[in-house]
């Protein structure tokens, strides 16, 4: 069986963790700056007042004038989601995370451990914790498991047998399949409102009318594929962060700080010669919000120039001045040997001797004693604002 655990509106719940009182009031995730003004997940009180996720901001405020907008906090959400996944892994579940708030795992291996499917799922719900209002679904197919979790109540477990999967899916609303709102509207206008009605149409006709996405939705409405979830590789999580004396918003300064972070991160001994496959750039914004972008490299590398080229453009997406910039090595390759060079490049000997010297200084004086000067605003009229001293432990 494939199990699915679902926490609806996870990014909003994570953002509300710091302000739990708002959870009982009409609140919604604010639109992302620079994008279409559509609100994100909403609280139960907001939903009761007629506000729906994905509504236009103006319409939502007109529907519910007391609606509180909660700033997106992707860094906090990612951290909270990672904690949930780790708790599940600690309880023995090899999880395959979907988007934040949705996780799949195969139950056959752990049913024996916990004495049956129901007990294993109860253990999984307990591992996540009741505060998240998590719900569980299990079925032979992934989509059926997701659909079961979607209609379950908080803390409830819904198991759908393979024979009854189609019967179970048929009366469910069309909104469960991942299809663009315009396509869903098109189907509704054609009189297709339930999954069973979509599944009853000829596949070729659906593909002709709605394209590949429609064909995929049709396949899901009939239960979807049986691909087993694959347990994820726990992230490496080697993190470096740099706190600025004042909020910084010019890209050149941020690029320089990023350069220093890349150098320091690659020098961390925990990396143990492994190459970076996936990195995350994080920032704490002035005013309290956070920002996070992940970058997966086509070829794993530790070349500073390539890493800077991959991460640098992301800095242009920062929505506000930054008070802290962080860099995480999220995924590393397996350890590999290093090919020694027959003839070392020119200057390598000098660099080695310099690094040896720095290591000795560090050993004698402690961490933080060796610093790099990073020019951050050489044009500034205030002399002390032109450069920063960044601690460099490796």
């Amino acid at each position: 069986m494939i199990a699915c655990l679902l926490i609806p509106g996870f990014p909003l719940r994570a953002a509300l963790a710091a302000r739990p009182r708002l959870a009982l009031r009409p609140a919604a995730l604010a639109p992302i700056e620079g994008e279409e003004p559509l609100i994100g997940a909403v609280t139960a009180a907001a939903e009761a007042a007629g506000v729906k996720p994905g509504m236009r901001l103006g319409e939502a405020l007109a529907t519910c004038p007391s609606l509180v907008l909660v700033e997106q906090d992707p860094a906090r959400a990612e951290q909270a989601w990672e904690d949930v996944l780790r708790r599940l892994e600690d309880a023995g579940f090899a999880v395959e995370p979907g988007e934040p708030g949705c996780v799949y795992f195969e139950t056959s291996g752990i049913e024996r451990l916990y004495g049956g499917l129901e007990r294993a799922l109860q253990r999984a719900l307990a591992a996540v914790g009741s505060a998240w209002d998590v719900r569980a679904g299990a079925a032979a197919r992934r989509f059926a498991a997701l659909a079961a979790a979607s209609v379950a109540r908080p803390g409830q477990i819904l198991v759908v047998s393979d024979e009854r999967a189609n019967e179970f899916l048929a009366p469910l609303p069309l909104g469960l399949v991942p299809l663009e709102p315009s396509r869903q509207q098109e189907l509704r206008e054609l009189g297709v409102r339930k999954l069973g009605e979509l599944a009853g149409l000829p596949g070729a006709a659906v593909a002709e009318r709605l394209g590949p996405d429609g064909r995929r939705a049709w396949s899901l409405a009939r239960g979807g594929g049986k691909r087993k979830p694959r347990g994820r590789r726990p992230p490496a999580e080697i993190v470096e962060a740099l706190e600025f004396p004042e909020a910084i918003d010019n890209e050149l300064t941020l690029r320089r700080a990023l350069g220093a972070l890349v150098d320091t991160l690659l020098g961390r001994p925990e990396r143990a010669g492994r190459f970076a496959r996936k990195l995350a750039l994080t920032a704490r914004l002035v005013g309290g919000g956070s920002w996070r972008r992940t970058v997966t490299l086509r070829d794993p590398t530790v070349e500073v120039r390539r890493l800077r080229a991959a991460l640098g453009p992301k800095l242009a997406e920062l929505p506000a001045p930054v008070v802290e910039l962080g860099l995480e090595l999220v995924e590393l390759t397996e350890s590999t040997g290093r090919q020694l060079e027959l003839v070392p490049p020119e200057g390598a000997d000098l660099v080695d001797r310099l690094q040896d010297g720095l290591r000795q200084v560090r050993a004698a004086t402690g961490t933080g004693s060796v610093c790099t000067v990073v020019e951050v605003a050489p044009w500034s009229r205030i002399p002390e604002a032109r450069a920063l001293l960044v601690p460099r432990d490796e």
Partner: protein
Amino acid sequence: MTSETTNRSTRAARPAGRVNEPRPALVESRFSGDPTHVNRQAIALVREEWRVVDRWWTEEPVSRRYFDVVLESGENAVVFHDDEHGRWFTQKA
């Protein structure tokens, strides 16, 4: 079961220090505000004088009057009067 962050190989954000921070200086000045002595040494020549007014829109505005001076001993020095705090500092400009 592990706690929230025990297995994260995280390092707390380290504050970046400033380079060329102003250091307090002992300066005697005339009524006009021009310095006459720096750290008990008389000034032989004021080579240049300029003003820096910046960040007036923040809670930490900067208003300084800089002097690039040559002392009687032949030593060069740059001092400034911080108009916000009413104190003298020395700094490499």
